[in-house]
């Protein structure tokens, strides 16, 4: 069973790593942050699979930390973009 779980973790990591092509190509910053978001979720899945495969309980806490902060960078990113273009964020306000 452990071998299968490690294999699944490797497959999922490989898949979400392919999504990093969006990090290279963009075109926009939103696409880049999306590829990071996908890798974050895939990373949590891989941590859970590897943790179950090794039977190490503490890896669950690592996954818990990652899950709590999963979208933190995305929030900061959009917030920073809004702050950077005050005219546009005011336009969003009025809608």
């Amino acid at each position, binding site marked *: 069973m452990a*071998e299968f779980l*490690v*294999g699944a*973790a*490797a497959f999922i*990591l*490989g898949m979400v*790593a392919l999504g*990093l092509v969006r*990090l*290279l190509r*963009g075109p926009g*910053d939103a696409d*880049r*942050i999306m*590829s*990071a978001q996908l*890798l*974050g979720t895939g*990373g949590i899945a*891989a*941590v859970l699979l*590897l*943790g179950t495969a090794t039977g*190490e*309980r*503490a*890896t669950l*806490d*690592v996954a*818990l*930390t*990652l899950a*709590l*902060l*999963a*979208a*933190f*960078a995305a*929030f*900061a*990113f959009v*917030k*920073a*973009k809004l*702050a*950077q273009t005050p005219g546009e*964020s005011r336009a*969003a*306000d009025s*809608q």
Partner: protein
Amino acid sequence: MIEILNFGLAALILGLAVWAVVAREAPAAVVGFIVYGLLLTLVWLQLQGIDVALTEAAIGGGLTGVLLINAAVRLRSTESTARAQRPSASTRWLAAALSATVTGALAICVLALPEPAPTLAPEVLANIAVTEVGNPITAVLLAFRAMDTLLEAIVLLFALIGVWSLAPDRAWGGRPGLLQQADPNGMLDYVARVLPPIGIVAGIYIFWIGADYPGGKFQGATLLAAMWLLVMMAGLADAPPISRSWLRWLLVAGPLAFIAVGVVGAVTAGAFLSYPHGFAKTLILVIEFALMPTLTLILGLILLGAPLRGEAA
């Protein structure tokens, strides 16, 4: 199978490191670096360093990303000018030679490490019983090498003072960072109301289990600081003015308690920071408990940056 996974991880990490250096636009490089931090968490897990993985997850997944994003946004207006000023060929060659030398020296050092590496781990395990804590990392950080941890806490405080010293004179004593406007859609507002209660419980939980399992005050404090930043990002609360005396007291409370415990040790157990027999775990918990709010505050305030506004909100 595990070899394929490890090899893939190593290749990805190297690729992302190159990307973070060569990417033309700062935001693209920053996202690359955030992903790099995520993968580093997995690497530490594969190296059995769960304590480090936990720290990397909290710092890399939360705080470093925000720090770099804010820096990238700040630098954006100067980016085109910086790109226009191309350094001369000799400067670039010099920089390349310097980088190559440093890399080469590091490689030689790593390759020259004795095999097997000298380790104090067996001695830690032989003596861990006297500290009464179950997690060897905590035993090292707060008993065998407590002095290092004390100095690290003080270094963090110095880092905060360094950040504050960048404040313009008129804003000194005021509130750090820019005023955050509430998000018009209410989406961030929603997350900033739902997530922090869960995050605070998780942060305290990770602090609490640190005595016996991977975890501890630093990882817990990082989570708490991230939750605090989320609330401020959503515009639900404003940063406190740095001239407040409660804030100043909280900032020094952790190190002061640590030093006080050290002095008690000097009187009762014969050496600074040594714990009297039978009280080791209690005193370790006292130190961790006192350091936690201080670390949370310091990490949050370093992320917010120098004071830029007056006291009025």
